């Protein structure tokens, strides 16, 4: 019990934070929003996976990856491939020249299911792929870069280039990937219609539960010895290396963990939104994920979720009513957060919010007010006497 309370929930403060967020996501939002808006929140919460992964990788590890969208996309595409294969059974695609393959392949004169698509007929394999594909990919990238001590801005630029490469590849290979439109028209999972209202509710809750699980895993990692090493590496990498630790292996590990977390988000995105396209893979979404984490607080797992929700609500609201203003606001947000609030919302909360709450809860405000009034009376008496 102590393990759960201290390590996973993070003591009293952490437990309260988790409880408030859980109440918001599991009770308040589902009760107060209609299904369309709730589905939108569900979509935002899938981005929150990527934001949480960036807290681990960037906030604690000091490794800025501008390619989280790659892993988000890999997970999303794995899931989309499975769903697409299920919805393109020979009966519903009989008008095609080759029935039984996804429609976009048929449009691109491909007559046989490509080899790398075939394992995605199995749901078990797909679930495995959502975890394994991004981790192997991250392992390769991490191994070749961290072992050679590539870090900092170089790592950021190279991951950004990888995001660009993958987008160009997906868009260019229309016959195998669905091109710029992505993989669309996904309907059922093992015969279960994911577009129905009840399915949307169920998927929302599954997504939320997974998100909290990821937060707990993140807490577990950060409160372990490994978490301390991660911080130490961020602040003085050489000193950790001189103490006899293999810094590269730790970095590879956390990079793989963050890749898997983003990938799970991507898979849940596909399930909830019903399609996957390269516009969630490239440079812009990847860097937006960084801003979600930055706004929420790069050192706070819970903060990253709030940050994601807030920025996305802002984006939806503003791009509906003032599309012109949105980019100005987004740009200003980037600059403002980086320059004035490097620890984001969570930092502001730590600094000011807690004091206010503590002040109210201990009735200090009352005392402060009382002293103020007494002082004021005293001065008035003084002036009256004069």
């Amino acid at each position, binding site marked *: 019990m102590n393990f759960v309370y201290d390590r996973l929930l993070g003591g009293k403060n952490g437990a309260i934070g988790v409880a408030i967020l859980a109440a918001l996501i599991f009770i308040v939002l589902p009760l107060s929003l209609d299904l369309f808006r709730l589905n939108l929140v569900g979509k935002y919460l899938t981005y929150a996976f990527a934001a949480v992964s960036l807290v681990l990788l*960037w906030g604690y590890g000091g490794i*800025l990856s501008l390619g989280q969208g790659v892993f988000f996309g890999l997970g999303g595409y794995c899931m989309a491939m499975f769903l697409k294969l299920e919805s393109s059974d020979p009966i519903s695609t009989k008008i095609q020249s080759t029935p039984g393959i996804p429609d976009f392949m048929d449009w691109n004169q491909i007559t046989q299911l490509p080899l790398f698509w075939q394992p995605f007929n199995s749901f078990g394999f797909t679930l495995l792929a959502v975890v394994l594909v991004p981790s192997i990919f991250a392992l390769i990238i991490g191994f*070749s*870069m961290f072992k*050679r*001590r*590539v870090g*900092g*801005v*170089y790592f*950021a*630029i*190279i991951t*950004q*280039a*990888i995001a*660009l*490469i993958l987008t*160009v*590849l997906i*868009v*260019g290979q229309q016959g195998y990937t669905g091109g710029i439109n992505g993989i669309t028209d996904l309907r059922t999972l093992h015969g279960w219609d994911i577009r129905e209202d009840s399915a949307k509710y169920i998927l929302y809750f599954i997504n939320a539960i997974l998100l909290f699980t990821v937060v707990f895993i993140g807490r577990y990692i950060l409160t372990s010895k490994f978490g301390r090493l991660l911080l130490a590496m961020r602040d003085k990498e050489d000193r950790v290396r001189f103490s006899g630790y293999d810094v590269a292996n730790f970095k590879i590990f956390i990079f793989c963990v963050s890749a898997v977390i983003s990938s799970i988000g991507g898979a849940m995105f596909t399930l909830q939104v019903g399609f996957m396209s390269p516009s969630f893979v490239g*440079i812009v979404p990847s*860097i937006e994920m*960084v*801003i979600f984490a*930055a706004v929420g607080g790069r050192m706070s797992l819970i903060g990253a979720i709030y940050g994601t929700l807030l920025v996305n609500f802002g984006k939806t609201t503003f791009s509906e009513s003032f599309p*012109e203003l949105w*980019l*100005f606001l*987004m*740009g*200003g*947000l*980037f*600059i403002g*957060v*980086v*320059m004035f609030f*490097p620890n984001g919302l969570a930092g502001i909360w730590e600094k000011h919010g807690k004091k206010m709450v503590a002040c109210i809860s201990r009735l200090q405000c009352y005392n402060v007010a009382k002293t103020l009034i007494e002082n004021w009376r005293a001065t008035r008496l003084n002036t009256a006497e004069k």
Partner: protein
Amino acid sequence: MGEYTSQELISIFAMQGFAGISLFSVLLLMALGLAIIFGQMGVINMAHGEFMAVGAYTTYILSVACEEYVPGFLPYYFVFAIIASFIVAGFLGYLAEYALIRHLYKRPLDTLLATWGLSLIMQQAFRSIFGAREVSPILPDWIIGAYHATETIDIPINGLFVLGLTVVITLGVYLLMFKSNWGLRVRAITQNRIMSGAVGINTKMVDRLTFALGCGIAGVAGAAFTTIASTGPTTGSAYIVDTFMVVVFGGAASLFGTIASAFTIAQAQSILEFFISGSIAKVITLLTIVVILMMRPEGLFSIKVRK
């Protein structure tokens, strides 16, 4: 490649080579500024592409103004447009350094995010001012057209002009960096910032001017760019990743490395583009660079720097 005769292959290589030279020129002009800034200050300027767009839009405004008020001057305005682009982009860069970058020197990863924010704001500003449609300035007649070298080879004159401009600017940067007192200070700061400060170099002022210079060169790149393609709000961001790859691949702070890598990348992409589809050419080029960088993280040519 079997279906082409050797004569045709030579022509293809020559033509695609010249197409690649235009790309090379723009990439090099962009990368020069970025390499100086990155090499000296370790700052990643994600808004560099937008400074290029500033130059392109400056050229556009001047061409419109020139057509409106002094049509007779139209054949010559372009030279002044290049200078104006340099000044406008450089001035904006100076302001950006003063307002934004100088507060973040201790946090290089954060400059990356802040300048990305700046690039978003600039993009939207372009869209609000000039509209979402792409614009092109009225080009003087002498820039348009092609020179027929042989029967199968056409060399576009705008490509030659841009190449000439690039050579001049590169030479200028070389002289400035390696033959002037100011360049000596810049190189001293690149190698050892603290010692440079200790011997009396005003590192902050040099930083600011270097940043302005880098952005100014990006502005010139923008002016050159208008002769090749039209300019839209997102023109700059389309080139930014390629430019970063040029800088990193060439080795930061190495002028020669930057030139060599811009040439390699532009030519590889341009020649491959003829034989396979454009997207795959891009993928292969970028992937090769990433793999080479994984094996040789310091880039092709690097100079020793005390961190």
